[in-house]
């Protein structure tokens, strides 16, 4: 469970990242955060991943109240969260296996179980046999799958994805989305920021729209295209993406 109670974040230059955010995301939900650049999506995700603290309000993730926690304790929350970035944030001098092993190691998993966990996870994301590859030897889609595998291997309860399809072609992007949907079906809460309306239309999930740091719209599953009046062709777009994927 993620709860934002009247959360604002003011930066040192006096500008606000988000203002008066009230939000509740239940366990197992799949939520899109959309909005133009500067709308506050990244600030919201940074609050979720404890990279920044709110200047006002309360952020609660599961049993933790981020606002009250000391910086040295934040690792406890981060261990429950898997993060997927647009730029992957993989270590390029380490293999796929080592990148995932690092996540397991820092989150306190036992080393004897590493191999099985890593190989199982790679199979789940469709990267079996790529464990000895270095990131430079992988395609964009494979890199993002590696990042997702790293987040999944630690059995994170919440997966946060910041524009994970931003740098990917439509076919690869669709593959990544399908993977995220599978992850969500297995019980993991997924919060994904994107500015791609086509993806949002096609997935039919809860959509939170941000503008100038405020939530201007929060629609439940499948209601987004009706609300937005922009997505009458969503099925057609979805089919088009699926066709490209094939």
């Amino acid at each position: 469970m993620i709860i934002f109670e009247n959360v604002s974040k003011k930066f040192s230059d006096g500008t606000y990242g988000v203002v008066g955010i009230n939000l509740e995301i239940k366990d197992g939900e799949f939520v899109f955060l959309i909005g133009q650049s500067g709308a506050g999506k990244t600030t919201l995700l940074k609050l979720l991943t404890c990279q920044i603290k709110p200047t006002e309000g309360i952020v609660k993730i599961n049993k933790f109240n981020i606002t009250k926690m000391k910086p040295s304790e934040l690792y406890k929350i981060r261990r429950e969260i898997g993060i997927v970035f647009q730029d992957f944030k993989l270590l390029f001098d380490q293999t796929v296996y080592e990148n995932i092993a690092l996540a397991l190691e820092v989150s306190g998993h036992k080393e004897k179980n590493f191999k099985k966990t890593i190989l199982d996870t790679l199979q789940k994301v469709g990267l079996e046999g790529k464990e000895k590859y270095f990131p430079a030897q992988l395609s964009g889609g494979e890199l993002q799958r590696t990042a997702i595998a790293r987040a999944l291997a630690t059995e994170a309860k919440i997966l946060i994805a910041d524009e994970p399809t931003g740098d990917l072609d439509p076919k690869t992007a669709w593959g990544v989305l399908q993977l995220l949907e599978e992850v969500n079906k297995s019980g993991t809460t997924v919060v994904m920021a994107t500015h791609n309306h086509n993806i949002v239309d096609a997935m039919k999930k809860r959509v939170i729209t941000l503008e100038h740091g405020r939530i201007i719209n929060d629609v439940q599953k499948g209601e987004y295209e009706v609300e937005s009046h922009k997505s009458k062709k969503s099925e057609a777009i979805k089919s088009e993406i699926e066709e490209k994927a094939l």
Partner: protein
Amino acid sequence: MTFKYSLRHIRRSPYQTLSAVLIMVITFFMVSIFIMLAFISSGILKHFETKPQISAFYPNDTPETEIMEIKKEIESTNLTKEVRYISSKEAVQIYKKNSSIDDIDPNLDLVSDKILPPSLEISAWNISDLRTLKSIVEKKEGVKVIFIEEVVNKLSSWLSGLRSGGLVLLILLVIESILVIWTIIGMRISQRRYEIEIMHLLGATPWYIRAPFIVEGMLYGVIGSVIGVVTTVILLHSALPGLTNFLVGIPLLPLTPENFIKTIFVIPGSAGIDGVPLAPISPLFVLLLLGLEILIGMIIGAMGSYAAVFRNLKK
């Protein structure tokens, strides 16, 4: 795991590692030289300090009672370790004993108690009191005084200057080592910012991220101290014959574990002279020296790296 990461850091930037190790080697080479010097200088000083520091020769016609009065007066100052009266007859005996050369009959009456004067041999607790004692001795007219205050004083001030200078140099080297380790670990942290950021986001504890850098600094200290001590021992070992010849007649402290413990852990320079020339370096002595310097190296490394971690990884 921490150790594995530290070794990986070291492997990835060999030139930074080399500079860190080199500065530690120089520091510990100087530390070792300084400790050895403390031993040797203690030996030299003790040699002179144990000799009678004032010898007062009185005219032959001076009554023994008068000399004994002077002796009592000197002893009453409580400044003396020993005041020994040597009569003319005893002086002859000492002379004969010390001059028993094969081709001269020591029993010949060439040297009699009429030639050799009675004397007082005085050793003070403190060399700075010798001048006071000398003034008491000189009250009697015609007395001839042999006084080694200047020799001992010069030697003492020379050695004390050497020790103070060495100590200042050591302190500067230690500070420099800490600063170099601080800078190098700081550079390491800057180079690994991206990796550190990822580790933070993956849920690493602050200690998990900091520990490899602190261990790395300690490793530099350990490697530097081992190389520094080994280099010093090899150099000293090869210089041993020359040093013994140069300091002929002056017995020095043997580099034994007993003296090491006395000198390092009790009072510097308190090790007793035992008249043994500079002995071959005991392996246990080297081990004790190595252990002490490894400990100092680890502390220096930990201080430098902790400062870097504290400054660069506050979050």
